[in-house]
């Protein structure tokens, strides 16, 4: 790569300018599926961040060894391997989180954010840029999922990170922990996020 990349910019773009959830709208399935509480969103975000980081590193390392016609299957195998590793490690050492995230862990494989970064960034850039790209994008994903999870938990269960701040039998907006609430909350957060970020940009 001839052009020099501004590494700070490279890292920060994933958090605000190209936020994977609020701006690029990538990886919607886990975003909508697991964010019924802030903790679940955080857990899913961190698991995805790890897979994204590892796959970006490996893809960047082997990019010149993989013929371009078979690059997609190669990326998928790499991503799927890391996801399986995450799944086994979670089940063995954090069984609580493993139970909560359930079916969504294997589904990290098809999170288009990860394949998207492998294809669009890591396969064209050096390892340092790829690591920073993965960290930025992953962190953007973590922040977005935690924010969405927190919003839904506050409205739907009247609690934040399992800490209840309404009486035990108070009526909360149950809608927000059900799937339709995920769409509504995501839509409003996206509007809000883009309003704020375009103003400051």
């Amino acid at each position, binding site marked *: 790569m001839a052009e020099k990349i501004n590494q700070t910019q490279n890292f920060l773009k994933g958090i605000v300018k190209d936020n994977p959830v609020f701006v690029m709208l990538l990886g919607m399935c886990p975003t909508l599926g697991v964010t019924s509480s802030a903790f679940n969103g955080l857990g899913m975000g961190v698991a995805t961040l790890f897979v994204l980081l590892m796959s970006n590193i490996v893809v960047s390392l*082997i990019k010149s060894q993989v013929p371009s016609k078979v690059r997609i299957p190669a990326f998928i195998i790499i991503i799927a391997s890391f996801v399986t590793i995450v799944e086994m490690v979670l089940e063995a050492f954090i069984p609580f989180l493993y139970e909560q995230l359930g079916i969504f862990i294997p589904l990290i494989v098809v999170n288009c954010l990860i394949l998207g970064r492998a294809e669009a960034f890591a396969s064209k850039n050096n390892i340092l840029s790829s690591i920073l790209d993965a960290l930025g994008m992953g962190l953007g994903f973590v922040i977005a999922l935690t924010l969405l999870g927190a919003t839904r938990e506050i409205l739907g269960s009247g609690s934040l990170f399992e800490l209840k701040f309404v009486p035990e039998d108070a009526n909360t907006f149950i809608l927000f922990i059900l799937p339709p609430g995920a769409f509504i909350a995501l839509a409003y957060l996206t509007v809000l996020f883009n309003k704020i970020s375009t103003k400051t940009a």
Partner: protein
Amino acid sequence: MSKKKDTFINMLVSLLMITIISGFSLGYVNDLTIGPKAKAKLERKINALKLVLPAFDNNPVVDVQLLKSGTVKDSVEVFPAYKNSEFVGAAIIGSTEKGFSGMIKVMVGFKPDGSIQNIVVLEQKETPGLGTKMKDEKFLAQFREKNPSVFNVKVTKDGGEVDALTGATITSRAFGEAVQMAYDEFEKNKDLLMELKN
């Protein structure tokens, strides 16, 4: 950047290498985690047993009985508890597929007379904040010290005596069904369990 050419041999070799490496690393991680995984599962079971059974001095996990049942496909796990060689109760895993999102598994601890000591939810995929409230003390307390032969574990809507969870009648119904199943198995096998230790 010198990219490998798209020749058949190049494609074959690169994919083969990637699959071999990922295969080996997965096998390695599997070896590393297989112990802790089994341990975590066992620990959960033991903790649940301690919660649902009266004090015991045998190892129910070792004494587990796998009993064939007419109602479910798999055999039913029955954990008998003894103290000083006397039968003090049994924990039975009751299950149903009629939960709001499928399988619900509960561990029910019975005293020798058939009344419920305690219940722990082992597995569920119910709606967070609604169906998951079946794990709450308020709901479970209804079942303690009750004997399903006189206490109807169905929800009040179906003529039973259990107050359903708000907004989660299906979950409450399924929960009652799982408890009922565990009770039926207990009654069926009570005599066998009492004899076992002697």
